[in-house]
Structure formats: structure tokens, C-alpha cells
């Protein structure tokens, strides 16, 4: 092909496209930027009108997020001077820190359930995807469609019997129960994505290994798995993001012990209503890992979302 291409956009249309896209991106960023900004405001700055873009930053929201506080008498406060910077922040309201809040616990639950279910969905999903990709399975297409169709059900439709079933089995409000549930939801995505990735690995690699005397299992984990590593990693991120963000099951099926952060963050109450800086701080901490993943994995996003159907 010659160096001249009719499909290459002109300079002017590129500039025009760039300006529009950047404008949209900047507008779309405003709500997110506002969340992060509000996390560093004092409660009064957070609710001032007109909204304050410039303000004196404070870590009050973060202190309120991680602690519970109680009011104390003047004598007590005078007798016990603040020992560190976060005590000092709380003192301006004549309060002392009574203990940690539930946020740490809920965040840890998100980590345990998120990573637990991701690990399990990837483990089971890789095995199933490999089998679907390489072996003749009766009714394979129907089975694959069945696996995908489980995602069409509204979570609340299955939540009622799962609620009853978990109560019988002693799984309600447990980490294991939530891990199994999220695995079941994620596995359809995992099988479909991973099948796409494994389909692309040439069969010849394994066949060569088999001829060399490897068993199927050995060929699978010594030859196929390393080849599929990037695909597995990006599928894992998608599963993790789902489990991390899930709300409906978490709010319906857990009440405390195994509750994740999404149902908890909107309930952080301050003096007179929601404590917006603390809510914003919680949201920021919670959203940050996902944002980092997204930026790190931007190359795989496109394939993940289109089930690997499109090759660039």
C-alpha cells in the first residue's frame, strides 16, 4: 500500500474530534473530582452555597470515616490534652475518639469477598473455558448460552430463595456465602471471556507437548496457562470490579458480619444528616483501587467488554 491512505483523517478533523472528546472527558470528570474534593472539606464547607472550589483542606472527613466519637465534659478535655493530630481535629467539637468505626471492617469484607470470589471464578472459569475450547462437549453451544443466560435474572428474583436457602444452610451473612454467590454471578463472564482467550492459543503447542509425553493436565498448566496469563489477569480484574461494586445481594443478604462497603458508605451519619465529607472520603478510598485498575488495564478494556470478539 502506498503511504497515502484515504482512511487517514485530515489534520483538521483530528483537531475537531480531539477538542470535542476532551471537552466531554472534562465534563464527565466533574462529579468524580467533586467527590474527591469534598472528602477534604470540613462539614460546613461541604454544604456551603455557592459550592466552594477553594477551601482550606482538612482530613476531618477521613478521621470521621474511620472513627466513632463521643462528646466529653470540659473537665475531661482539659485533663487529657490531645495526643496526636486526629485527636486535635476531633477536639474542636469538644469530642474524643471513642474507637474505630465499622468502615475498616466493611472495607476488609469487600477485599475478602472480592478477591475470594475472583479467585474462585477464575479457577473454575479457566477449567471450564479450557474444556469448552478444546474438547467436544455435547450441546456445548447450548451449555454456553445457559451459562450466559444466568446473568439475565434480576438479582432480586433469586435473592428470595437464596435468602431462604442460606438461612437453612447457615450461610447467611457469611463470607463463604457471599463468595459462592458472587462466584456464581461472575462465572458466566469468566467462562465467556476466557474461552475467547484460550481459543486464540494455537492447539499445536499442546499437541507438541502431548507428543513429548506430557499428560493433558501437564500440557494444560505448563503450556496453556502461561500463554493465557494476560487474558486471565484482565478477566480477573473484571470479576473483581463486579464483586467490589455489587450492592443488591450485599444489602439483601447480609446484615453485618459479611457486609461489604457499598451498603455501608451511604449510611455514614454525622451531626444532622449524612456526614458528606466522611461519605466522600469513604467513596474516594473505595473507588480509588478500581480507578487505578482501569488506568493500568486500559489496553485490555476493549477486548474484555466485547467478549474478545473483536481483534484489533
Amino acid at each position: 500500500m502506498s503511504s497515502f491512505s484515504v482512511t487517514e483523517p485530515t489534520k483538521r478533523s483530528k483537531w475537531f474530534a480531539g477538542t470535542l472528546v476532551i471537552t466531554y472527558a472534562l465534563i464527565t470528570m466533574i462529579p468524580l473530582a467533586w467527590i474527591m474534593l469534598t472528602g477534604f472539606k470540613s462539614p460546613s464547607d461541604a454544604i456551603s452555597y455557592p459550592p466552594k472550589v477553594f477551601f482550606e483542606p482538612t482530613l476531618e472527613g477521613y478521621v470521621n470515616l474511620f472513627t466513632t466519637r463521643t462528646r466529653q465534659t470540659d473537665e475531661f478535655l482539659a485533663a487529657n490534652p490531645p495526643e496526636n493530630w486526629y485527636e486535635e481535629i476531633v477536639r474542636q467539637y469538644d469530642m474524643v475518639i471513642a474507637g474505630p468505626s465499622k468502615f475498616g471492617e466493611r472495607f476488609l469484607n469487600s477485599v475478602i469477598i472480592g478477591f475470594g470470589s475472583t479467585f474462585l471464578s477464575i479457577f473454575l472459569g479457566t477449567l471450564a473455558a479450557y474444556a469448552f475450547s478444546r474438547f467436544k462437549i455435547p450441546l456445548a453451544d447450548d451449555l454456553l448460552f445457559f451459562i450466559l443466560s444466568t446473568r439475565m435474572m434480576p438479582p432480586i428474583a433469586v435473592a428470595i430463595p437464596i435468602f431462604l436457602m442460606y438461612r437453612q444452610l447457615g450461610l447467611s451473612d457469611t463470607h463463604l456465602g457471599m463468595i459462592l454467590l458472587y462466584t456464581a454471578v461472575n462465572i458466566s463472564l469468566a467462562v465467556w471471556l476466557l474461552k475467547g482467550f484460550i481459543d486464540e492459543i494455537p492447539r499445536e503447542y499442546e499437541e507438541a507437548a502431548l507428543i513429548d509425553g506430557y499428560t493433558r493436565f501437564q500440557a494444560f498448566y505448563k503450556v496453556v496457562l502461561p500463554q493465557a496469563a494476560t487474558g486471565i489477569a484482565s478477566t480477573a480484574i473484571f470479576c473483581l470490579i463486579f464483586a467490589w461494586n455489587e450492592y443488591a445481594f450485599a444489602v439483601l443478604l447480609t446484615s453485618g458480619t459479611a457486609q461489604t462497603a457499598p451498603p455501608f458508605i451511604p449510611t455514614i451519619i454525622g451531626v444532622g444528616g449524612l456526614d458528606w465529607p466522611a461519605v466522600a472520603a469513604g467513596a474516594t478510598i473505595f473507588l480509588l483501587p478500581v480507578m487505578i485498575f482501569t488506568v493500568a488495564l486500559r489496553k485490555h478494556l476493549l477486548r474484555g467488554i466485547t467478549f474478545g470478539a473483536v481483534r484489533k
Partner: protein
Amino acid sequence: MSDTPISRAANATPANVARKIKGLSDRAIAWIFVGPTIFLLLAVNIFPLIWTINLSFTNFRANRLNREVEYVGFRNYERILTDSDIWLNMQATAHFLFWTIFFQVVIGFTLAYLINKKFKGNDLWTTIIVLPMMLSPAVVGNFWKFLYQPQIGLFNYIITFFTGKEPSSFEMLGSVDLAPWSIVIVDTWMWTPFVMLICLAGLRSIPDYIYEAAEVDRASKLRQFFTITIPMILPFLMLAILFRGIENFKMFDLVVQLTGGGPGSTTELTSINLKREAFEKWRTGYASAYAIILFVTVFGLASIYVKALNKVKER
């Protein structure tokens, strides 16, 4: 797919011989590998679904386990289908579905088309645009509630800044007329990137030579757009609409946090209504019938739609 004579011939390579000598047979491995996934889906998806169907014919209440359960036939279904309030919820859901899909397709496709012009730094800006869809809908809904506050919210301030309307003269979440639109705006903000990514994948799958041939034929740019770009991207657009349709039909977390179904029941989408019946009023049997009706609706519409999609693909 794998049953062509060529692939059958390929399977008869010496590798198959080696396979039979060492380790388990392929069939055994296939079942060991697929079995746990199928088992899990049966246990956590299909079994509960069958249970829901069974419950839907009873007057069971999950908060009164000692009460005797009676089978009531199709009474639950009858009551739901003749309840005018539920038809209002269906209408609210349809309204929400129509407008979110409309805006997301229009904006998403436009963005994808522009990004495909390969301007400098488009990778970075694409990543920024994609961020909202990766976040937790519940947390996002909660925070947009803050942005929408009439007295203190940034959203009202910006509208006031551009239109001069009093910020307290319009309450996005409190007004019967505006509340449905407040959800449409947030959902569009959050999910337009998804449609955009699928469109982008579609645009990138169109081979350059088609445009080059059109150029040789002296077809105008506009003509190329309507005779090449649009038909080629149509299956992708339809796929995006399918995914968004299914997801938005189930929409729960965002709306619960944002409006909670209010004011009145103007934003009470079917899934919110369902949650209320099942976990607040504890009418388990009734809610089960409701759930089944919704599932059958989604499944039915999706199946018809997939058939249409396949026809478009075949062209």
C-alpha cells in the same frame, strides 16, 4: 463449529494417540473441568429459580415461617397483571429504558466515531471517559444525590450559573417531573462509555479497503457513512442495546441510592417495587410471581431481539 471434516482430520493427529496412553481420557477431563461450574450455577441460579417458581404459586411469607403455606394457583399472577400500580412501574421502567438507551447510543456512538479519528492522546482521554462505568453504582448514586441537592448541590449551581434560574426553584430529586430525568442523567453519565467502547470495537473492525474502494468509486463521505459505517456497525450497536437493556431492566442499586423510588412512586422501577414487596412487605409468594413475570419478560424480549440481531449479522 468444530465438526467440520477439516477439524476432525486435525483431531486425528498422533497427539490423540499420546493422549489415550497417558492420564485420564479427554472426556473425563472435560467433565472434571466443566462440572464444578455447572454445579455451582445449578445450585445458586437454577435451583433458586425453580424454588421461586414454586413459591410464586403460594401465599408464603418469609417472615412468618410457622404459618402454613397454601397453594393459591395463579392468583398471584392474576393480581399482579391486573394491578394498575404495577403497570405504572412498568411504564416508568420503559421510560427509563428508552431514554437511557437513546442518549447512550447517540452520545456513545458520536464519541466512538470521534475517538476513531485517532487524534493525539486519545488513549488517555478514552480511559478518563471510561472511568464512571467501573465505579460502584450504589456509591455513585449516593454521591449524585449530593450533587443534586437543591440548596447546596453543584448540579443546581451549574444550571443556575448558565440559565439564571433560582437553584431552589427546581429540585431534581424532589419534583415529580424531574426525578425520572435525574436517574436518566446519572445512568447516561455512567454507562455511555460502555456503548462507546462497543462502538469503538465495531468501528475498528471495519477494514480500510472498503472505504478505499468507495473512494475509488467517488462516493461522498456522507454516502460512505450511511452505506458503509452505519450498516457495518449496526450489529455492534444492537449488541450494546441488548446489554444495556438487560442491565437497566435489572437496575436497582443506582436508583435505590439516588431516589429510593420517590417522590411518590415516580421513579419506582420494577426491581425497586419487587424489592419492596419481597423484603419490606414480606409477601414472598406474590413477589416470587412478580420476579418470574419480570424474568420471562426479559428472557422473551432478549430472545426475540437476539433473533433479529442474528438476521442483521447475516446480511
